[in-house]
């Protein structure tokens, strides 16, 4: 009883390479000695630290708490001691270090006190708050905090809840295995999501190259208390993109720059549903995830990995990398990125690690000029004109690129995949996008600077006028004033009192109407200053 499916424009069929890792069950890896937990594991604000070096923490204990609406907490994946909080390499395309908590495991793996949540008895806001504290984020790769997406919005009620089990990228099979082995738990999670959103319809979208997973899900859904459809969608990359899957399942297009709720749809990864279930029904925050390890490794497969474990150790668990392997790619071959080192930790976004080698991912031959064959335009799932975007990005004509909807590009890589000239198109788009964003930021800063400059000039002007007025007054007063010493004395006393008062409260004039973040910064600086002053006095 699967309802009609729709099509999105373009798409490609890269070789799947899923069989290598999909054949064996998920293996739990042995607990590592050292865990490195980056604070930035999600989209949004960096969470605030709750522990200090030397603290002993238990498994599941809060290490950093979500800061603001769009943020997520970080928890300890095992019990142990915090040995350092410093900048370390993280799995990020930039290859730059970021703030991380390093945890030395004590081997006891002792849980902090935790319990299930009777979510139906609590107000929905409390459940969402709990999810925020539980560090639940989208595990499909975008790592957007889930509690934000599960919020009911009166303006845009969610009618359809879509669960994304499409997993369209080659090589990746972690969702496939999860659905095969833990379908019932995923369904429990879906039930919670459905309850929170009040969705009328729940659909699980699974690509038709995963019949076992679809069957397992179908069996589990049949036992559910709510009706959940399982739809097999045609295998076509990037059919697992949220917007593409929504289009395929509902025929609706998410408006550009808007959220799916705009059209009454919300979309989650199946693994996210699983973590929601683990947290609500067992009180376990997100401290591990299933990761596919494949490519040039001895025993490709899927592993349940504690967050913070180093990639090198994880690969060892898969039998180690083959000697010809030259590096590791996190994510799939279409949208993943090269890891800066094998020592970086597994994070919430780590869905797949591919040990790459030149014969697996051959280096691109030198790019030829674009011959405008428009194969990229035919393959683009967003119906962009990649050849025009390339032209503008290449010549750094960024405004034009924006006009041609550069920001609708999902960087799926279809255009690069089909390009007969082997132009690294997506790289140009990434470059152009980040240039534009940086320029926008600079523009904002410039506007702020202009405002402040104008304010300053106005202030100086005003002060000048005030001074002039005072002078004039004084001149006039001097002529008229022939009063005795009493008055003069009084005036001097008053002036001194004024000066005293001024000295007492040295209020910097330009700290009014600053954003709270800056106020805070200033407060910090003041504190530091006090400390230095005291030090000086002591000396």
């Amino acid at each position, binding site marked *: 009883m699967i309802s009609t499916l729709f099509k*999105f424009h373009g798409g*490609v069929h*890269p*070789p799947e390479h899923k069989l290598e890792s999909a054949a064996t069950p998920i293996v739990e890896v042995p607990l590592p000695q050292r865990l490195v937990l980056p604070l930035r594991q999600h989209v949004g604000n960096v969470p605030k630290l709750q522990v200090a070096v030397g603290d002993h923490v238990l498994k599941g204990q809060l290490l950093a708490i979500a800061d603001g609406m769009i943020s997520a907490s970080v928890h300890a994946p095992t019990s142990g001691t915090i040995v350092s909080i410093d900048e370390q390499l993280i799995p990020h*395309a930039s290859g730059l270090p970021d703030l991380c908590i390093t945890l030395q495991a004590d081997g006891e793996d002792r849980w902090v006190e935790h319990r299930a949540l009777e979510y139906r008895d609590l107000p929905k806001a409390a459940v969402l708050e709990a999810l925020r504290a539980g560090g639940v984020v989208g595990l499909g790769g975008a790592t957007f905090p889930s509690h934000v997406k599960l919020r009911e919005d009166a303006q845009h009620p969610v009618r359809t809840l879509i669960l994304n089990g499409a997993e369209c990228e*080659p090589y990746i099979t972690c969702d496939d295995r999860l659905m095969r082995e833990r379908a019932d738990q995923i369904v429990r999670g879906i039930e919670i999501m459905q309850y929170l959103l009040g969705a009328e319809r729940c659909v699980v979208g699974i690509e038709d190259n995963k019949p076992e997973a679809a069957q397992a899900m179908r069996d589990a859904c049949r036992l559910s208390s709510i009706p959940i459809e399982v739809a097999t969608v045609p295998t076509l990359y990037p059919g697992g993109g949220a*917007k593409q899957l929504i*289009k395929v399942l509902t025929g609706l*297009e*998410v*408006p*550009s*720059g*808007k959220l799916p709720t705009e059209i009454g749809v919300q979309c989650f990864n199946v693994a996210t549903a699983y973590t929601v279930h683990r947290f609500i029904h067992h009180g376990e925050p997100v401290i591990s995830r299933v990761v596919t390890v494949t490519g040039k490794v001895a025993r490709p497969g899927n592993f349940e990995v504690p967050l913070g474990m180093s990639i090198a150790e994880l690969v060892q668990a898969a039998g180690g990398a083959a000697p010809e392997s*030259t*590096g590791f*790619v996190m*994510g*799939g*071959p*279409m*949208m*993943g*990125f*090269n890891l800066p080192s094998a020592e970086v930790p597994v994070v919430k976004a780590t869905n797949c690690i591919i040990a*790459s080698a030149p014969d697996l*991912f051959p*280096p*691109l031959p*030198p790019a*030829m*000029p674009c*011959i*405008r*064959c*428009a*194969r990229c*335009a*035919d393959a683009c*799932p*967003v*119906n*962009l*004109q990649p*050849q*025009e975007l390339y032209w503008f990005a290449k010549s750094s004509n960024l405004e034009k690129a924006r006009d*041609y909807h550069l920001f*609708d590009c999902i960087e799926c*890589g279809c255009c*690069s*995949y*089909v*390009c*007969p*000239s*082997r132009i*690294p198109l*997506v*790289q140009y788009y*990434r470059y152009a996008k980040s240039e534009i964003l940086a320029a926008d930021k600079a523009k904002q800063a410039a506007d702020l600077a202009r405002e402040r400059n104008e304010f300053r000039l106005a202030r100086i002007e005003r002060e000048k006028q005030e001074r002039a007025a005072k002078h004039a007054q004084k001149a006039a007063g001097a002529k008229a004033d022939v009063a005795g010493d009493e008055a003069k004395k009084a005036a001097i006393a008053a002036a001194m009192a004024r000066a005293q008062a001024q000295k007492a409260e040295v209020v910097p004039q330009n700290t009014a109407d600053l954003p709270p973040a800056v106020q805070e910064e200033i407060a910090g600086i003041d504190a530091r200053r006090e400390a230095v002053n005291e030090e000086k006095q002591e000396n």
Partner: protein
Amino acid sequence: MSQSPYISGSTSVSVIMLKVLLALVPGIVAYVWVFGGGVLVSLTLASITALVSEGVMLKLRNRPVRPFLMDGSALVTAWLLALALPPLAPWWLVVVGTLFAIVIAKQLYGGLGYNPFNPAMVGYAVLLISFPVIMTQWPAPLALAHAQLGFADQLHYIFSRGLPVDVQVDAITSATPLDYLKTQLKLQHALADISQAPVFGVVGAKGGELVTGAYLLGGLYLLQQRIVTWHIPVAFLAMLALVAGASSLLDPVHYAGAGFHLFSGASMLCAFFIATDPISGPTTPKGKLLFAAGIGLLTWLIRTYGGYPDGVAFAVLFMNICVPLIDAYTQPRVFGHKL
């Protein structure tokens, strides 16, 4: 290592160009069958000139020579030009045309991928304007010629304009049907009478229609291989057929029918090989339709009212000028945007 995507498909520029060359082969075979082996000499001359001039220009411009010579685009230009020229054109005509196409219309604009005009058609138009007499002097198909030239004689004729003693120029040339039609219509003859002339075949030119049919065959191969999309051939042929058909319906005495227009001159070559040049053409589906329909209309207009017997080259060049505008105004609806 570079950024994702780390895998890519299998097509490449040279594969595309090679398939285009392959698709031209049936047309060339038919050509030799109808007009003799002289065209092979033109093809060879044009190919050598194109490769040498492209290589020299790349060297002068300090660009890598090998990958650009191997991509086959120069050969495609050379072949298209050679096939558009009269078969027994003197050697220097072929060389000058190819040089103009490669050096001026292609390399000065930056080489492969950057030329706004179709190089072969630039070469052709320049030759047509500069040497109108030679360019309109087509040899008669072998079956019609009053004297037969062997391959050796053709070779001799191409390189030195020399003919065997007993043969006059008139004996081996004839007006093309397009040309003949135009002059006869000017002389107030009725179409029905004109088309009785021996140069006319079943639908187009005698012999020529066979070559045109072979181009169509090659074109279908390109469509099947997805080297070209259907938009341009279909829009071009449909537009040409539409205006020709409509005008001949309204006034059958003065206007030739759709079949004639489709199967004479360079129609088929244009539909599948010239107008489909991706570099100088538009990229959006709607733009392709507009572009090709424009070529079809202009071709008919120039053929019917203009000063030149065939209008394909000028029509293509004119529409080339419009390409950036066409592209800019036919952007398809992007996912998530309203129209």
